[in-house]
């Protein structure tokens, strides 16, 4: 995973509320067994017509937005299915951060495991960004937990552990192995409800 420190980019705006993971990556692309190569399936039904030709009006097909790495969306982004493929598709397409007023929680968790930073900011700022999405440039500094645009510098919340996971690109499983004594102790002593154990 690429460690995340800071990024600067203009925005890719998608002005729709409650975007579910079925839209981010439709089910027909969940049959692969690998973890990369999902960029071409991102927002497939919104991006391509039934013959597979790009729909011109959709923002991801606009060449002047192609090098942008920050997605701007509305509330409850990533609702529905738990498919991590949704984050893989965004990551493979080049998205490094997503700015929204709120996220669905499984999607939010999945982001951190894949080097994508989900940022929650309030509705007024979201509204401002949508109104200036074509031109406004965003600087995100993860160390300082700040997002800067025009003359605004806004602080955003992120848990210490998620921040560390992004900044250091750590192997979470390897880290959990350091708690082996706690896990085996639990298995020996506290298995009242661990019914496979009793």
């Amino acid at each position, binding site marked *: 995973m690429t460690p995340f420190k800071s990024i600067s980019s203009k925005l890719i705006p998608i*002005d*729709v*509320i*409650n975007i*579910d993971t*079925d*839209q981010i990556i*439709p*089910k*027909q692309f*969940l*049959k*692969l*067994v*690998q*973890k990369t190569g999902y960029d071409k399936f991102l927002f497939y*039904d919104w991006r391509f017509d*039934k013959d597979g030709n790009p729909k011109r009006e959709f923002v991801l097909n606009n060449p002047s937005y192609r090098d942008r790495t920050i997605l701007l969306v*509305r*509330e*409850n982004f990533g*609702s*529905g*299915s*738990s*498919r*991590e*493929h949704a*984050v893989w598709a965004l990551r493979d397409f080049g998205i490094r951060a997503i700015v929204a007023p*709120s996220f*669905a*929680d*499984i999607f939010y*968790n*999945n982001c951190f*495991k*894949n080097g994508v930073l989900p940022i929650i900011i309030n509705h007024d700022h979201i509204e401002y960004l949508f109104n200036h999405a074509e031109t406004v440039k965003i600087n995100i500094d993860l160390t300082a937990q700040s997002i800067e645009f025009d003359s605004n510098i806004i602080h955003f919340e992120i*848990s*210490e*552990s998620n921040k560390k996971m992004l900044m250091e690109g750590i*192997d*979470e*499983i*390897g880290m*959990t*192995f350091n*708690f082996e004594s*706690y*896990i085996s102790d*639990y*298995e020996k002593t*506290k298995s*009242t*409800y*661990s*019914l*496979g*154990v*009793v």
Partner: protein
Amino acid sequence: MSSTNSIRHNLPRTLFDKIWDDHVVYQQSDRAKKQPTLLYIDRHLVHEVTSPQAFEGLRIKNRSVRRPNLTFATMDHNVPTSNRSLPLVDNTSAMQMQALKQNCNDFGITLYDMDSPNQGIVHVIGPELGLTLPGSTIVCGDSHTSTHGAFGALAFGIGTSEVEHVLATQCLWVNKPENFEIRIDGIFKNSHSLTAKDIILYIIRSIGTSGGNGAVIEYRGEVLSRFSMAERLTICNMSIECGARAGLIAPDSTTFEYIRDRLFAPKGKDLDNLINIWQDRLRSDNSAKFERTISIDVSNLAPQITWGTNPSMVIDITDSIPYPDEYSHGNDGLKKAALRALNYMDLTPGVPITNIDVDRVFIGSCTNSRLQDLIEASNVVKGRTVAPNVRAMVVPGSQLVKTQAERIGLDEVFKDAGFEWRDSGCSMCLGMNPDILSSGERCASTSNRNFEGRQGTGGRTHLMSPVMAAAAAVKGKFTDVREML
């Protein structure tokens, strides 16, 4: 750590608090910093779609599965529901199923594959096999894992990275979610035409797709105590559709009787002892605090049906398609969503929903494919025939449900009426197998999501109960089932 726990134990706790506390492996001392807790997982359920990358991750790092005996796998998303003896038409599906077989074999995990009599939708077979038990923690790489909360288990969906983490460590780092209470009040006319599906659709309609906000929702109220396990499972199943992480219902005698004699459930004296403990402990203390309490009155509930492209876009069957302004109450985002949904669904505001014809009917999915669902639907179908404009299918939730249904002749009732009677799987709930809608087709579906393209690109899904779907099949249009029973 132990001292803080013992102090907390003297405070009134919710059912969720109790299950959570029982599973804490390690907790950072400074709770104010919102550090995640390491939680022990009692059951890990695995299916073919969200697991291959997790097993691959283990292989790359030369890691093993910590507790293969707590891990159970089945194939449900990709499996064909007809002609199973033939080679799979879809090569990529076949490869994904082969990968699961190989992975379970390599890592020593019990697998119920396509040919097993125990195969079925993971959220149907968990309870059926006695893997889902009160007070336990259950995860699966599938958002509808919330289903298992019907047994008073803390059960939630996870992503593939977390699947890998649980495989390797049998634990998960979790920030403790908020705990909501939804009180289902009122005199529910528990007739044959109003069902648990109508209640949960009404709840989602009332609080919206993000009203649950990542929380654990405990459903409480007199109505639930009269509900069967199948009905409770339907309620908890769709908790994720209002944005909740998990649904939860305190276990009672109905729960305990269900568990008795299930394959993997404890037996005899062991079970009796557990039931005593469960009865004693697994309920929210009287003065326990919830972060939020929502009350829903179901006294005047009519059959519920979705009109739009998310599960909160719900109306009564007696209503007309809403106008965007009426639906959005001045919220610009909701108005845009309504316009988009009307366009996608090809619907006109003001038209009674009972005027609208259907092309397909799907009775199935982890929401509504249990024996009781099929019995109730068959009572509507019996002695009637599927309308000529409709293609209808029944997909039992598991091979066991299928066998039980056939034993009491339900297959004949459905086939005589013109339904297709299939093998078990997720099927047209998400259309990863050949069971999909064609573009423009309209479906009366007992599943859980009506998102754009969910059942097939361009397909139009309306969610409802099994009896309502059966009524739509017979009449060829959306119908108030109360007129037919």
